[in-house]
């Protein structure tokens, strides 16, 4: 029976329309409002009829624009800096997570060692701990334990090079945030990559070994290319979490290392909520993950191992 010619129930389309509205609606709202002045947004009367302005984008991007917009006297929003912070943190934590995760997954799948099953299950259980639970202990550790004494050799050297007054701690550094993101995302990445590595026929590894490949060559030249779809899926997942994360970043970053999500919230004060700027920054925030997802999803091709072995 040819299903495409079947008459569909109108309710079916109604449900689809509803779902599309629910997912796309907020994005459209954000897009439209990012081109409105705050007065227009708050008045609520204008709807779709308004005078579009790029003023909000000018405010958001004031620190990287080559000209000084007329409507602002002082550029308080450092979007450029926060954007770079977000990129550094999201990209490095993604790369680290993938490298460590793929190796760990390979070991868990292929090597027999004492406690393998326990290790495998524990990684997944770590995933179930909510980030909020981690927040307080991690904040304490990052601020008090993982520090170089400011009078010590390394701490002194870092302080001389980068300035600052107190001890040099993990808190407030890119590394501090990257570290916690890697730890947070690893369990899921290990778990998802395990299922991809299991599908790589063992005889391929054996063939590579007979052909003269060492353990690392087997891993990088045979296994990794074959689990590319898994790596891409894991990368999209990791990057998006690292890019969007708010809670931990808000506690662990300082003025110079804050990421875009935190910058956005800075536009809210008890006196004023700058909706237009928030919407504009939100639009800008959405662009990198979209590009990243489009690039990475091209790697998700099914049937990577086709032709390797006979059914």
């Amino acid at each position, binding site marked *: 029976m040819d299903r495409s010619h079947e008459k569909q129930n109108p309710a079916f389309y109604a449900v689809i329309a509803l779902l599309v509205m629910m997912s796309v609606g907020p994005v459209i709202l954000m897009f439209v409002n990012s081109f409105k002045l705050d007065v227009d947004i708050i008045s609520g009367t204008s709807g779709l009829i308004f005078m579009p302005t790029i003023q909000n984008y000018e405010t958001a991007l004031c620190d990287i624009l080559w000209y000084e917009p007329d409507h602002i006297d002082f550029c308080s929003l450092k979007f450029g800096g926060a954007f770079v912070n977000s990129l550094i943190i999201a990209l490095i934590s993604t790369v680290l997570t993938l490298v460590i995760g793929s190796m760990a997954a390979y070991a868990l799948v292929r090597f027999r060692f004492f406690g393998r099953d326990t290790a495998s299950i524990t990684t997944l259980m770590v995933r179930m701990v909510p980030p909020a639970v981690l927040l307080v202990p991690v904040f304490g550790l990052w601020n008090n334990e993982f520090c170089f004494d400011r009078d010590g050799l390394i701490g002194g050297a870092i302080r001389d090079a980068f300035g600052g007054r107190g001890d040099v701690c993990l808190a407030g550094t890119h590394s501090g945030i990257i570290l916690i993101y890697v730890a947070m995302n690893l369990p899921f990445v290990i778990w998802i990559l395990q299922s991809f590595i299991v599908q790589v026929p063992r005889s391929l590894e054996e063939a590579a*070994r007979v*052909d003269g490949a060492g353990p690392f060559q087997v891993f990088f030249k045979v296994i990794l290319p074959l689990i590319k779809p898994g790596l891409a899926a894991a990368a999209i997942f990791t990057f998006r979490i690292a890019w969007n994360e708010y809670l931990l970043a808000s506690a662990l970053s300082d003025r110079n290392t804050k990421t875009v999500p935190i910058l956005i919230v800075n536009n809210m004060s008890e006196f004023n909520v700058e909706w237009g700027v928030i919407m504009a920054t939100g639009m800008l925030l959405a662009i990198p993950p979209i590009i990243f997802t489009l690039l990475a999803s091209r790697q998700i091709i099914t049937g990577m191992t*086709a032709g390797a072995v006979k059914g």
Partner: protein
Amino acid sequence: MPEIRLEGLVKRYGAVQVLHGIDLEMADNEFTVLVGPSGCGKSTTLRMIAGLEDVSEGEIYIDGRPVSHLEPKERDLARVFQDYALYPHMNVAMNISFALRLAKRPKAEIDQKVRQVAEMVGLTEFLDRKPGALSGGQRQRVAMARALAKDSGIFLFDEPLSNLDAKLRGQMRAELAMMSQSVEKNMIYVTHDQIEAMTLADRIVVMHGGYIQQQGTPEDLFKRPANKFVAGFLGMPPMNFLNCDVETRGTETFVTGAGFDLKLQGEAAQKAQSHNAKELTLGVRPSDLAFSQNARPETALTLDVRVSEYVGAQSVLLCECGGASVTVEVNSETPMALGETLVFEVNPARVHLFDRKSEAAL
């Protein structure tokens, strides 16, 4: 080319012992076939030689050098896998040159080698294709080419033809036989197919239950099987086995059973007489029985024909003889009807006798 020697090779998986002390020597330039039913330990032996499986006990020597603790890449061997194991993300040329690229050989040399090997197995037009875009036979050739390109002295085959269809298998078998003559390598070939073993081998090693049953040239094994297992394993259709008792009448020795009373001649008679157990198993190959209505009783086997399988010039008759089933190969022109009781003449020089308990040949 290197000589390989296995000494008391033992393999255990936990408490289960799958190989019980394999001793084997493979000479220069020899095509050795390990053959046996599934689970007889032949593939395990090959994997141990390749270094893909740990040796529990014993030692493997390649050119007198103990290798059982070396990685596969340090053993200088090439291997064709049963499931081909081609790298799916590389095209044919990359697959073939993988080992050479790992060894960091100069590019010109790699290119030349790839072209030479591809020509040898007839893959020249497919060098840019990925394995996924090739047919089963072509993949098999890539696997072969990849092993050939390595230029190592030892060539291991793990049931390389078992995934091909019957026609292609025959063709590849012939090509393999041709190749084995033209390349000077020490080849070890594992198969469960006795036809492959018979046609390809310089030497056959029959394995069963983790033991070597017998080794020798195909002719040797076919004509003088060491035990009932080897006798039944080699040859198609397989040898017939009938329980019989030895009787001495005067100077002559007879073996008797339901439907036959055969007089033994020469060596067989002597062996049967000097053997202390009188309960034996008689083995007769289907091709050593001839339809002959007026055969003398001391060379005759009386059979009830049950089924006739027409396979062209020959027909295979499935018959019954005193409760045991017997197959006979006859010319298809032989006039006969199913259900008939017929007399066949046994070639007395070609009967095999086995001890019924130990199953060893007399």
